[in-house]
């Protein structure tokens, strides 16, 4: 479904991604782990061209998103993204946060979308907040809203960029529960995360990134129980205690 081909990304003189080749097929749940600064988030953000790769290709259903003349906006509609800092639209109500894009992009009619938004809110326990101003939501509630906002576009794949890193500890669980539910429903997902227990539980495949490359990958059991690389072991020994 998504394929990165010899993907590199430089920020000035700093080479953040150093040639990544990776293929993600439909139905996979990929967790990306690794030390900070290893390029996890940058890699994820290159997949929907939030960051323009310095070289290489990003293929989405075989279309190279980096080539000129490709309507990236159109493709982005099919790739949902959830951010570390939620990025809820503060000038819109909870419901409007969900309905704005699908209605504007004529994915659904206003009436249809109003109904669907309530259904989505219900699914993540925010039905009662539908007409609230987002500033009244807790961090966990904001992130759950951000997830259904992305889902409202009926994406084929969801990209999660450290979705629980900005949350107070007691709110991490409620957000992970929503993601788990989503993954159980078969949503192709790519999750950059520091929640190792969660990664082990939900992933079909784990990528360990180090210094701009995918240093090791495999099933959760392979990575967490039998890591091969020195760096993988070192990293895991630090985060798993």
């Amino acid at each position: 479904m998504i394929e990165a081909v010899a993907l590199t990304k430089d920020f000035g003189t700093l080479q953040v991604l150093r040639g990544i080749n990776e293929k993600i097929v439909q139905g996979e749940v990929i967790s990306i782990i690794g030390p900070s600064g290893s390029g996890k988030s940058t890699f994820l953000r290159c997949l929907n061209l939030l960051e323009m790769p310095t070289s290489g290709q990003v293929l989405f259903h075989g279309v190279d998103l980096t080539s000129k003349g490709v309507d990236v906006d159109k493709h982005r509609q099919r790739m949902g993204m959830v951010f570390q800092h939620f990025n809820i639209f503060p000038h819109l109500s909870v419901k409007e946060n969900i309905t704005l894009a699908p209605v504007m992009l004529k994915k659904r009619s206003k009436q249809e979308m109003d109904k669907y938004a309530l259904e989505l809110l219900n699914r993540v326990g925010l039905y009662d907040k539908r007409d609230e101003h987002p500033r009244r939501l807790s961090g966990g509630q904001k992130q759950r809203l951000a997830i259904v906002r992305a889902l409202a576009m009926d994406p084929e794949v969801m990209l999660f960029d450290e979705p629980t890193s900005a949350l107070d500890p007691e709110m991490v669980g409620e957000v992970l529960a929503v993601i788990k539910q989503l993954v159980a429903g078969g949503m192709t997902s790519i999750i950059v995360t520091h929640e190792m227990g969660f990664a082990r539980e939900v992933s079909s495949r784990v990528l360990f990134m180090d210094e701009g490359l995918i240093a090791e990958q495999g099933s959760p059991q392979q990575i967490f129980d039998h890591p091969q690389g020195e760096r993988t072991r070192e990293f895991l020994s630090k985060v798993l205690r």
Partner: protein
Amino acid sequence: MFSNMLPNLGKVMGRYGALFVQGLYYTLLLSLLAVLGGTLFGSLLALMRRSKIALVRGIATGYVEVVRGTPLLLQLYFFYFMLPELMPMLELSKFACIVTAMIFNSAGYVCEIVRAGIQAVDSGQTEAARTLGLNGSQTMLRIVMPQAIKNILPALANEFVTVIKETSLASTFFVGDLMTQYNVIRGNMFLVIEPLIIVGIIYFLVTFTLSKGIARLERRLKESD
């Protein structure tokens, strides 16, 4: 001299009260036109400064630098003499030339106000909108601008207060504003200080009231965040 001041103040007010009102009218009209025109043109400049095309960016940036780097009085002279030369068929009035000059001047400052207002909106907002599939202008219109307005409005109102004071320079060309009236009354009555005090009080009351109003507006906008 000071013993005569109070009776003189009364005399000036009694005889020329209407002129002060007229002066205030022209000062406010000139300021309003300058800021309204400046807002339209300044917003356009702000968009130009965000353009992908380097030349467009350069023109806007150069314009802003020139406006902010030269005295307003010089700009007023420039338009006052240049506009009728450039476009004689329009037969522009003195007032029109001065309004145009003030618009061009104000646009330079408004451009920076709008730009700063847009920049103050968290970049995550744009990213979230773009990942939902909105294009650049949809994002600007529906996500960034509604939030930027909150930063822009108070600053724009402050610009209005500044312009009200700056229009006094336009009196150089006798366009009927408050300072023009001061010059008229001074010439007629041979009184220097008294009409100046009255004009000063009028300026102060207007700008003070507006500033207080703006501070209130700012508080209200903050609360709604």
